[in-house]
């Protein structure tokens, strides 16, 4: 075994020497494989990133979730800003009452406020909302419990916190029943929410405090009565989400008294819609990259084969000498196979680096979540090795089958 490994290593060294004698040629030869492998790396990173972000979104929002945000009218001054240009708790009620496809509508306020417990600080996002919010987002307490309807109605100073906030403020201590200062007031912690991970947009969803909306309005975010920052809706099912979206727009236009042809002062975003679009983009891009990968790997492989055939022809005499002094056919075969694998692996490594670059570019430029996994690396190197063996085999066998006398006779 050791002897075998030593022999393989010796032929790798030999192959690297042979390759390094013709750096430019090797570089050009491996270009195709490099591009192909880079495409493979990018496509797998894209696929696993897309899968991850889709599952993250499904679990974060549910595929039948809808969100309503206010939109400041571009034609400012045309409408009285006090007249329904903001979203309100009445809007939420109207949506559930008047739409056949909207099951729940949770209004919410949001802010970011410092929370303090015994000298430990944290800066969570604070959400003030109603109990329906937990149902829409499918959030459950990991420990403790939700607030009661009574607490919600009377505006008790109670809250639930995310795991990250719990860790930052309480460490290993149990937060339940403790009083944490948020802004200028103290709130009793009723429960800790289940861990949710990052949102599709990269923020943590676990650095969070959720409290009843009236409590928040009287302590942290002072607004006019009933005014809210956004609404979180859920359609009765994933299938009805498109209809729910249409109905929500109509109901809100009516409630906000927007005339025919007037511009919406809100946006309804459907999760399903967003997801479908993203899937479509990912799908098209994946297909394109797979195409690029396949074509360039085949072209690269043929390039390697071509260069190996040239190399065998150039070194016919060397092959003859090696045979005369005792190289067996397998020795010659392995020598040239290793050389072609070395060649294609160089392309593979370069392609992996290029792929990393492309992934980093996509991630920062487009904000896509992409992920390079260990299996991606294995795939990239596996692909290039396979190409090396597959396309190097024919030239290597040609070398191994040379007749020693004819090979020696050739100059």
């Amino acid at each position, binding site marked *: 075994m050791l002897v075998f490994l030593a022999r393989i290593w010796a032929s790798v060294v030999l192959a690297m020497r042979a390759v390094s004698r013709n750096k430019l040629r090797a570089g050009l030869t491996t270009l195709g494989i490099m591009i192909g492998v880079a495409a493979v790396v990018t496509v797998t990173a894209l696929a696993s990133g897309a899968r991850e972000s889709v599952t993250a979104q499904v679990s974060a929002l549910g595929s039948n979730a809808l969100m309503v945000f206010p939109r400041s009218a571009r034609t400012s001054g045309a409408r009285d800003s006090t007249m329904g240009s903001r979203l309100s708790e009445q809007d939420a009620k109207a949506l559930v009452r008047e739409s056949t496809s909207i099951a729940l509508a949770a209004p919410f306020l949001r802010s970011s406020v410092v929370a303090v417990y015994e000298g430990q600080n944290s800066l969570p996002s604070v959400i003030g909302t109603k109990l329906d919010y937990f149902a829409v987002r499918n959030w459950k307490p990991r420990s403790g419990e939700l607030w009661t309807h009574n607490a919600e109605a009377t505006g008790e100073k109670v809250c639930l916190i995310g795991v990250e906030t719990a860790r930052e403020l309480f460490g290993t201590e149990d937060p339940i029943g403790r009083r944490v200062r948020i802004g200028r007031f103290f709130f009793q912690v009723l429960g800790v929410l289940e861990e949710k991970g990052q949102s599709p947009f990269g923020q943590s969803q676990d650095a969070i405090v959720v409290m009843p909306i009236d409590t928040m309005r009287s302590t942290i975010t002072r607004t006019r009565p009933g005014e809210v920052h956004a609404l979180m809706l859920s359609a009765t099912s994933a299938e009805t989400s498109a209809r729910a979206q249409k109905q929500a727009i109509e109901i809100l236009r009516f409630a906000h008294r927007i005339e025919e042809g007037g511009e919406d002062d809100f946006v309804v975003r459907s999760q399903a819609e967003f997801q479908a679009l993203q899937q479509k983009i990912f799908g098209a891009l994946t297909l394109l990259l797979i195409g690029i990968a396949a074509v360039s790997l085949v072209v690269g492989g043929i390039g390697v084969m071509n260069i190996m055939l040239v190399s065998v022809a150039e070194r016919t005499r060397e092959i003859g000498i090696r045979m005369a002094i005792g190289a*067996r056919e397998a020795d010659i075969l392995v020598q040239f196979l290793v050389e072609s694998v070395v060649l294609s692996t160089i392309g593979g490594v370069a392609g992996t680096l290029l792929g990393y670059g492309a992934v980093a570019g996509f991630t920062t430029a487009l904000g896509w979540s992409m992920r390079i996994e260990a299996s991606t690396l294995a795939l990239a190197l596996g692909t290039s090795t396979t190409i090396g063996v597959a396309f190097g085999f024919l030239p290597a066998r040609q070398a191994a089958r040379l007749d020693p006398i004819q090979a020696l006779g050739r100059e």
Partner: protein
Amino acid sequence: MAEPLIELREVSKDYVSEAAIVRALRRVDLVVERGDFVAIIGQSGSGKSTMMNIIGCLDRPSTGRYVLDGIDVTERSNDARAIVRNRLIGFIFQGFNLLARTTALENVELPLVYRGVGGGERRRRALAALEQVGLADRIHHTPNQLSGGQQQRVAIARALVTNPPLLLADEPTGNLDTRTSLEVLELLQRLNRSGITIALVTHEHDIAACAKRLVRMRDGAIQIDVRQEPTDAAAALAALPSREAEEKRA
């Protein structure tokens, strides 16, 4: 004398092409005993190289049998013949046939690589072989940094490094001047005295005179096969005018 190392029994070799059949060897019988030193001479095209290639297990006879060191190698597989070449035979070629861009040491190590000898042992034996041919100070030179005579001595070291019983040399001095040729022959005679059997093809009579046995070929057959009193290459070298004298004359 000792038992035979090479036995060719009615060996023929035909090269068949569309144009014609070339009968390169015609029912050749040749027995070479251990420790012998045979010079093979004959006109161009008489079949000398063809016979050497068969003796060297590089080629197969069309008919007849070839027994080397007691083993009938006539119909052995290519791999078996590669092993026979590696273990029993050292080749010396007219064109030296060293690997380019590869140091003398690495060239000499090569046969041991194919035998699976480990790095340290390989190096030790290669150094010993290079020392034997007087090139201990040139081990890291590549062929293009060596003279023809030096290259041929590297090739001899490569042939010796596996301690084969048989050295085959097809016109080893064909590319060398008289003095260098005699130096190579002196080395070969020394090796022969230590027990290695040598078969050598040459066109030059003073080279052939250094062998113990002379075989003359003609039209693919052995025409003359005689024993002779070999000339001592070392003495012939000493008899040559000194290098300085030659240079003065030039």
